[in-house]
């Protein structure tokens, strides 16, 4: 169900929308002022009611995550905001930073107060120079107004917000790798437990949230947690609010759109995305960033069990299932970052998979052997198959390698690389076999007409 909203994007398209005057004209900083006049537990409770599922990929409930933060006798706490935005196909957080950076700063103030922190670090990938500039600009403006610093809004609760930059490594989007990078180290993921809420940045209790998660916080308080949650068609599944949807690839109008949770892939591709470009038909869609297994248009939902979150869509097309954290997990894929990549039938699915395997091979941090070696093998095997030099044994080998990465690595990068691999080889089995038989599809290895 497509229900467009304009909470997170109300300043998109407004001239000078990134300045504090524009933000305050639309009610900016009112919620931070109010929240700081309440208590930490009141803030966390409101967040729990909002059913705001993390927008970074894993979909963990933000309010619950905040409630894990316990005051420590000697150590300070930190809020770390993840704006590494490196997942292929994902380009939503950048729009918030560029067009409404004050929303992020206000979210940081409320977030710090809610988790008991006095400092927030926003980790932005280095390439996003305009984003960093806009965030620093917003921080300076907020500080000059007394919204940041020793006494935000006159309350004796110091808050500082800083921007920290990465240096070109996808893995630094993984939260523990990000923490190492923030501490000035190589961005290698850490074993969990301990979780960041116990041992995070600089050895201190830390909450890591995606940038869009934090940007939604002022809206949670503006509407009230419950009303925020009820915007969503999946409120009953504990998946609340509104969010940013992205669509790229072979659609007529790619872009970022805001809507209540519950948009279907059909809405996203054919309504928001304007339909398939260049006169093609839909071949496949990767729903939420490259780590999410691909879906095909002819697939239907099989959920006869009444307890399944998908039961209401039993027998329907996967394109008609509302995009939610639990609905998409039950479909055997993931919602991820909610930014879909659309492939038309004029391109070769093997080439798409090869493109992504090259990515994962390049970005594996090299710490865990199954991931470091496995992503290399996968890339080489799919490249060989694409060149028409592969065998059916190679297909089985891909399956075996991907299965051996899963569950055997320190972080979820391993799953992020192997799950889409398994999806491609299972769902495009016929294409792979045709390549082996020397009869590749009409697209013949092309990704672009």
């Amino acid at each position: 169900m497509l229900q467009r909203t304009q909470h997170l994007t109300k300043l998109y398209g407004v001239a000078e929308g990134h300045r504090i005057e524009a933000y305050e004209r639309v009610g900016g900083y009112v919620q931070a002022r109010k929240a700081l006049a309440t208590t930490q537990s009141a803030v966390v409770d409101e967040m729990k009611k909002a059913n705001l599922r993390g927008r970074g990929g894993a979909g963990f409930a933000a309010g619950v995550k905040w409630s894990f933060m316990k005051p420590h006798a000697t150590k300070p706490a930190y809020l770390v905001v993840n704006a590494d935005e490196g997942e292929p196909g994902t380009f939503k957080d950048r729009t918030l930073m560029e067009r409404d950076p004050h929303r992020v700063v206000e979210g940081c103030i409320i977030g710090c107060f809610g988790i008991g922190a006095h400092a927030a670090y926003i980790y932005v990938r280095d390439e996003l120079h305009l984003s960093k500039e806009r965030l620093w600009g917003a921080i300076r403006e907020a500080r000059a107004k007394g919204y940041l610093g020793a006494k935000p809004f006159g309350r004796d609760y110091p808050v500082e917000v800083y921007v920290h930059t990465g240096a070109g490594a996808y893995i630094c989007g993984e939260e523990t790798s990000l923490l190492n990078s923030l501490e000035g180290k190589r961005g290698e993921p850490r074993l969990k437990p301990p979780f960041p809420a116990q041992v995070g940045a600089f050895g201190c209790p830390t909450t890591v949230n995606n940038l869009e998660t934090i940007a939604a916080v002022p809206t949670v308080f503006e509407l009230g947690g419950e009303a925020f949650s009820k915007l969503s068609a999946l409120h009953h599944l504990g998946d609340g609010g509104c969010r940013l949807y992205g669509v790229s690839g072979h659609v007529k109008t790619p872009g970022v759109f805001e809507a209540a949770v519950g948009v279907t892939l059909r809405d996203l591709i054919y309504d928001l995305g304007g339909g398939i470009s260049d006169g093609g038909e839909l071949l496949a869609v990767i729903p939420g960033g490259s780590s999410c297994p691909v879906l095909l248009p002819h697939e239907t939902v099989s959920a006869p069990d009444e307890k399944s979150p998908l039961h209401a869509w039993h027998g329907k097309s996967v394109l008609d299932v509302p995009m939610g954290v639990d609905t998409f997990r039950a479909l055997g894929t993931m919602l991820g970052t909610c930014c879909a990549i659309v492939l038309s039938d004029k391109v070769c699915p093997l080439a798409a998979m090869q493109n992504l395997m090259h990515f994962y091979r390049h970005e594996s941090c090299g710490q865990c052997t199954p991931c470091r070696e496995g992503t290399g093998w996968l890339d080489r095997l799919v490249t060989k198959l694409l060149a028409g030099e592969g065998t059916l044994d190679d297909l089985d080998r891909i399956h075996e390698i991907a299965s051996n990465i899963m569950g055997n690595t320190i972080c979820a990068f391993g799953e992020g690389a192997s799950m889409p691999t398994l999806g491609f080889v299972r769902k495009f089995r016929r294409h792979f076999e045709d390549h082996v038989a020397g009869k590749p599809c009409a697209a013949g290895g092309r990704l672009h007409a």
Partner: protein
Amino acid sequence: MPFALSPERDRELAEILSRYPNRQAACIPMLHLCQEQNGWVSDEVVEFVARTLELPSAHVLGVVTFYTLFNQQPVGRHQVWVCRTLSCALRGSDELLRHCEKKLGVHAGETTKGGEVTLRTAECLASCGTAPMMQIDKNYHENLSIAEVDRLLDRLLAGG
């Protein structure tokens, strides 16, 4: 010759250090600062960062080699990155890259003879909705056509 930051960047470094509870955390921002001045991270830069932040050189070198944006060799006056990842590839980044290679007379990863431009590929730069795209120095160029790429590269080659 040992490396040192310009007075202006030195002031910036002091401000950077004030953001963190320890000196090590300034490692990546400081390397960026040095690279901005020097163009690349030389052994002298590594030594300088290690000394300033009171870290072993091996730690700093470990950081430099982990992140793709730290240049371990001298590079051209301008940096061009063409995004090669899926959303861009679906919209013609392959042709775009081939065109750049032809026009500049180098392969991805190389620098033009006159030292004007280093051409590289990049992995997804969070600009998928405006593909194909490339980054030149600190700026994004989106929704690119071959004609637009020509204009941009001409400007770089002319010393702009």
